[in-house]
């Protein structure tokens, strides 16, 4: 579905992505792992069009989306739930979800999407009239994912959904991410929490200082000794 081919991207003079290639097949969860500063978020920014791509190409279903406007990429079906959740604190839960559907043309199906999101996250339904700023961290993460789902995406980009959350809540969130995928949404999951991310993914890529240094089936990566030592805290 999504193909990134030899992408180079820069922040000023600093090269943030070096010849990165990766592929997200339809219907799968692909994990993008690596330490802080490895280029994970930059990769997502390049896909979403928030930063320019100097060399290489990014293709959705065979067509280049490289350097399209951000809102155009969303309209084509790639939506991102950004790092740090970034819910609109002054908007109600319901309004946050509403804005997620901004580019939808099929207005009459939007109610179905509300039901779907409230189905995954019943807590959001209870709090739909509440301002998002009053939610707990876990609830805000649910809202950030729910908001992205309102776009009815072909491809969902999740940037560190486990960041700063209690282990039990992380477990919940990951199991819902898996559910969302089994309902047919393709997912690119960026995580530092490599073990748990690989546990629900089909395939994984490991980034280091802007380069893909390792990749493979998730079940193989979990067992790989080198990967374990370097990224999975297996010592």
């Amino acid at each position: 579905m999504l193909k990134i081919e030899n992408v180079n991207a820069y922040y000023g003079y600093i090269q943030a992505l070096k010849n990165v290639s990766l592929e997200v097949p339809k219907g799968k969860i692909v994990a993008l792992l690596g330490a802080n500063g490895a280029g994970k978020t930059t990769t997502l920014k390049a896909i979403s069009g928030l930063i320019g791509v100097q060399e290489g190409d990014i293709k959705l279903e065979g067509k280049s989306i490289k350097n399209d406007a951000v809102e155009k990429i969303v309209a084509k079906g790639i939506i991102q739930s950004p790092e740090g959740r970034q819910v609109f604190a002054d908007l109600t839960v319901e309004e946050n979800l509403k804005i997620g559907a901004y580019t939808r043309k099929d207005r009459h199906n939007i109610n179905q999407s509300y039901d779907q999101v409230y189905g995954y996250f019943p807590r959001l339904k209870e709090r739909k009239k509440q301002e998002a700023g009053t939610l707990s961290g876990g609830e805000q993460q649910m809202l950030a994912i729910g908001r992205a789902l309102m776009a009815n995406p072909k491809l969902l980009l999740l940037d560190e959904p486990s960041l700063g959350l209690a282990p039990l809540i992380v477990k919940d969130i990951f199991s819902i991410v898996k559910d969302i995928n089994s309902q047919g949404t393709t997912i690119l999951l960026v995580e530092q929490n490599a073990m748990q991310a690989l546990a629900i993914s089909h395939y994984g890529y490991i980034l280091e200082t802007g380069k893909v240094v390792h990749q493979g089936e998730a079940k193989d990566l979990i067992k790989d000794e080198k990967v374990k030592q370097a990224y999975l805290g297996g010592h």
Partner: protein
Amino acid sequence: MASFLQNVIAGIETGSLYALAALGVVLIYRVSAVTNFAQGEMAMFSGFVAYSLWQRLSLAFGNTHVTYIMAFIGALLFATIFGFIVEKVFIRPALRGSLVGKMIITLGLIMIVNGSAGALFGTDTHAMRRAITTPSFFIGGLLIRPNAYFIIFLTLIIMFILFYLIRKTMFGVAIRATAENETTARLMGVPTAKVSSVAWIIATILGATAGILIAPATNVHTNMMADVHLKSFIAAVLGGFTSFIGPVIGGLLIGVMDNLVGFYISAKWRTVIVYGFLILILIVKPAGLFGKVRRKKV
């Protein structure tokens, strides 16, 4: 009692015009994160356009309600283009600039707009007609000024439409989302450049409307909006820059207090008393009456 009512109504009349202008200031502040110090000058320019159109049309077709309404609408069309151009040419390129930089740009705009108005329309003072020319009359001891009621009524309608737009529609949610977090709004597919453009257009129209309606009282000249503009800013600060209802209450409060203090306490000292009192309010509520101090969760 009659004179009390008289003062309150006159206060609401001018206060609602401050409120209109203040809403424009707040709208721009929230979407573009810049305080538009040129709002008043832009409104003055639109006022001149309305006056010139009205003069020309009256010469050609006679001074009727129709020519006034046509001039009014023409000026609002001008304001639409004016707001669009100012945002596009002056504000958009500085989008990621510093706050001070953007503020200086709007200060520069004051000079440009004021200078252009002087060059194009001259520095003379002109009398503008009222929207409603029906003469005032008495009911009991109360002087009824139809134009004042019209102004209050019209601003109420405009505010109602604006609040509906901001609170209930998808575009309103997009405006508030862009105001809070521009990057994330874009990630949700909101064309934030378009949102900013429309916000400037709406704000310029609000300012122009205030300018045209106040013109019969201030006359049309290059400094006609100085007082209104200052008070609309104070209204916005008093009500709170983070809310939309705040500036409306702030504007009405200033208008009414100005009149009541002037009438009952001291006409000489009214400015000092009114604004001294407003500063007291701000000491108690620094974010304004309806302003919120934002808390952030990690």
